[in-house]
C-alpha cells in the first residue's frame, strides 16, 4: 500500500468521523449565537442516538428513526430552554443536568427494553442509512489521483454525510442572510436591543434552541444507525464536547466550523491509523497525544495565541426584562 492509498483511507475515515461533530457543532453555533451556552450537546446526541436506534429497530425504517431522533433531541432542547430561558436558571447547570439524564436514561431504558446491558437490538439493513455510490464512481476509479479520491472519499458515504455538508452553507445563509439569522446574532450580542425593537427575546432563543435540537438529532442518528447498527452505552463518547471545542476553535462561524470539525475528525482518524505504528525518525507516538490534541489546540486558541476567540457577548446570561 503506497502513501497515497493510506492518505485516501485516512481521509475517508476522517470524513466519517467528522460528520457527527459537524452536525453537533452547527447545533451549538445556533444556540450559542443566540446567547445560550449549550454544554448539553453531548446529552442531546446521546439521547437522539438511542431514540433513533430504538425506532429503526422496531420499524425497520431509517427515516422514522431519524425523525424520532430529531424529536427527542428537540425535547431536550426545550427542557434546556425552559430552565435557562423561562426560569432564567444557570445554562451550564442545565446542560450538565441534561447530559446526566441522557447518559443514565438511555442505559436504564435500553436495559429494560432490550435486556442487553444498554445495547439496543441490531438494526436491520432497511433501518440504516447505508452508503450511496455516486454515479460514475466505478468508472472513475482508475483515473489517477482524482479517481480514488472520488470513489473512496466523495462517493460511498451515506445520505446523512451529504446532508451534513449541505447544512454548512444553509446555516451560513440562515445566520447571515435571513431576518431570523440577523435577530439570532443580535440576541446573542445585545438582547436588550432586540427587546426594545419589539421582538420577543425568549421566543427567538427558543427557536434557536429548536434548530440546535434539530441538528443534534442528525448527529445522534448518524452515530447509531449510519455509522453503526445499534445503540451502544455512552456511544457519543465526548463528541458533544469535541464539537463544542470545534465551535470555539472556529470562532463561532459556520464555514470555519466545518474546517475545524474536519481537522478534529482527521486527528481522530490519524490517531486510529497510528495506533502501534512508528513515525520515521520520531519513533512511536503515544496515541493519547492525538486524542488530547483537539482540546489542547482549543485551549491554546482560547489563550489568545492564535487570534482571538470572542464569544457572543450575551452568552450564558439569562435575559431579564426591566422591572
Amino acid at each position, binding site marked *: 500500500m503506497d502513501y497515497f492509498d493510506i492518505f485516501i483511507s485516512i481521509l475517508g475515515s476522517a470524513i466519517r468521523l467528522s460528520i457527527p461533530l459537524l452536525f453537533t457543532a452547527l447545533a451549538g453555533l445556533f444556540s450559542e449565537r443566540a446567547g445560550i*451556552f449549550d*454544554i448539553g450537546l453531548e446529552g442531546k446526541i446521546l439521547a437522539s442516538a438511542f431514540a433513533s436506534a430504538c425506532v429503526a429497530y422496531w420499524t425497520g425504517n431509517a427515516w422514522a428513526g431519524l425523525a424520532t431522533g430529531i424529536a427527542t433531541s428537540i425535547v431536550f432542547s426545550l*427542557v434546556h430552554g*425552559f*430552565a*435557562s430561558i423561562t*426560569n*432564567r*436558571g*444557570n*445554562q*451550564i*447547570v*442545565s446542560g*450538565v*443536568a*441534561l*447530559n*446526566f*439524564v*441522557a*447518559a*443514565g*436514561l438511555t*442505559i*436504564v*431504558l435500553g*436495559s*429494560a*427494553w432490550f435486556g442487553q*446491558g*444498554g445495547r439496543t437490538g441490531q438494526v436491520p439493513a432497511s433501518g440504516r442509512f447505508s452508503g450511496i455510490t455516486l454515479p460514475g464512481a466505478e468508472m472513475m476509479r482508475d483515473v489517477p489521483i482524482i479517481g480514488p479520491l472520488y470513489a473512496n472519499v466523495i462517493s460511498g458515504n451515506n445520505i446523512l454525510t451529504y446532508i451534513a455538508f449541505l447544512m454548512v452553507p444553509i446555516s451560513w445563509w440562515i445566520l447571515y442572510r435571513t431576518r431570523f439569522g440577523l435577530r439570532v446574532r443580535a440576541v446573542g450580542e445585545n438582547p436588550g436591543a432586540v427587546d426594545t425593537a419589539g421582538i420577543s427575546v425568549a421566543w427567538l432563543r427558543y427557536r434557536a434552541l429548536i434548530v440546535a435540537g434539530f441538528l443534534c438529532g442528525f448527529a445522534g442518528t448518524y452515530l447509531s444507525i449510519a455509522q453503526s447498527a445499534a445503540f451502544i452505552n455512552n456511544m457519543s463518547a*465526548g463528541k458533544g*464536547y469535541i464539537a*463544542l*471545542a470545534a465551535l*470555539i476553535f472556529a470562532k463561532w462561524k459556520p464555514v470555519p466550523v466545518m474546517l475545524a470539525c474536519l481537522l478534529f475528525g482527521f486527528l481522530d482518524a490519524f490517531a486510529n491509523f497510528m495506533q502501534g505504528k512508528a513515525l520515521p525518525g520520531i519513533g512511536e507516538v*503515544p496515541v*493519547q*497525544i492525538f*486524542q*488530547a490534541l483537539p*482540546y*489542547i489546540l*482549543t*485551549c491554546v486558541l*482560547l*489563550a*489568545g495565541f492564535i487570534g482571538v*476567540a470572542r*464569544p457572543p457577548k450575551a452568552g*450564558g446570561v439569562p435575559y431579564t426584562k426591566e*422591572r
Partner: protein
Amino acid sequence: MSTASVPLPAWINYGLIPLLNLFLAFFFSGLVVWAIGESPFEALKLLLAGALGRGEGIGFTLFYATSFIFTGLSVAVAIHAGLFNIGSEGQAYLGGLGAALVALSLDRYVPWYVTMPFAIIGSALFGAACAAIPAWLQAKRGSHIVITTIMFNFIVSSLMNYILVRVLIVPGKMAPESRTFLEGGQLPKLDWLIGMFGGRLGAAPLNFSFLVALVMCFLVWLLIWRTKLGYEMRTLGHSPTAASYAGMRYARIVMITMLISGGLAGMMALNPVMGASARLQIEFVGGAGFVGIAVSLMGRNHPAGIILAALLFGVLYQGGAELSFDMPTITRDMIVVIQGLVILFAGALEYMLRPAIVRVYQQISGK
C-alpha cells in the same frame, strides 16, 4: 410587583425550596422506575435498606459520601468567587497521581500516618496544578473557565491513560494500574466509627479520609466566612465591578480560588486510591467530580449543606448498587438519572417554584 424581589424567610429559602426541588427530582425518577414496570415505592424501600440497613451498607454510603464532600467543596469554593469549576473530575484524576506517587515512594519505609500528610499535599498540589492553567486563562486571558476546565478533563484523561498504560503499569500485567501500595501507603479503615454504633464495617472501604473530608469542611467554612480572602472571594462572586472598585485584585483572587478548588478536588483521590483500592486505577474518579456539582448546588455551597447533600448522594450510590442486585431490571445507571434530575431541579430550575411559593407565603402572612 414582581415576585423575584420579594424576600422570603431563611427556612423557606434554604429548607423548603430545596426540599420541594428534591421531591420533584425524586418524583420524576419514580416515574422512570414506574415506566419500566417496577414499583417506585418498592425500589425506594430497597434502596434505603441497602444504603442504611446494615453497618456495611452505611460504611459504603459514607465511603461514597467522602469523595462527594471533597468534590462538592471544590465546586462550592469556586462558586463563591463566581467561577464555575466543571473540571473537578479531571483535577481529582490528576490528584490521584499525586497521591499515588507519594504512596509508591514512601510505603516501603514509613507507616501510614507519616505518608498521609505528604499524600494530602501531593494530591492537592496535583489537583491544583490541573486547575492552574484554566485559572490563568480566566484571570489573564479572559477565556471562559467552564470551557477550559471541560477541555482539561479530557486532556488529563488522555494524560493519565498514557501514564497508567505506559509508565506505572506493573510489567507483565494487563490491567492499566499501578502496583498495590504496601501498608505504609494505605489509609486505615474506620472500623471503630461504625463499631461505636454497634455495626460492623465488613468489606466497606470507609477510611481515614472521611475524617480529612470533615476537617476540610471546617477549613472551607473558616476560609469563606472568617477570612479576608474569603470575603474578597464572596465579593467577587457577587459583583466583580464592586470588587474591583474596592481595590481587590481580580487575577489574584481567581488564581487562588481555583488553586484551592483544584486542591480540594485532588484530595478526593485519597479516598479511592489510598483508602479503598490501594492502587492507582484507570478512571477511578468515576464521575465523582460531576456529582460534586450536584452536591454543591443541593448544599447551597455551604459546608454543612454539602455534608448533607454528599450523604444523600452516598445513599443513592450505595443504595442504587444494592437495588440493581434486587431488581435486575433497574440498572445502576438509574443513579445517574436521579443525579441529573437533582441537578436539573435543584440547580437549573431552582427558581421555578419561587413565584408560586411567594404568592402562597404572601397570602398566609397577609402582606
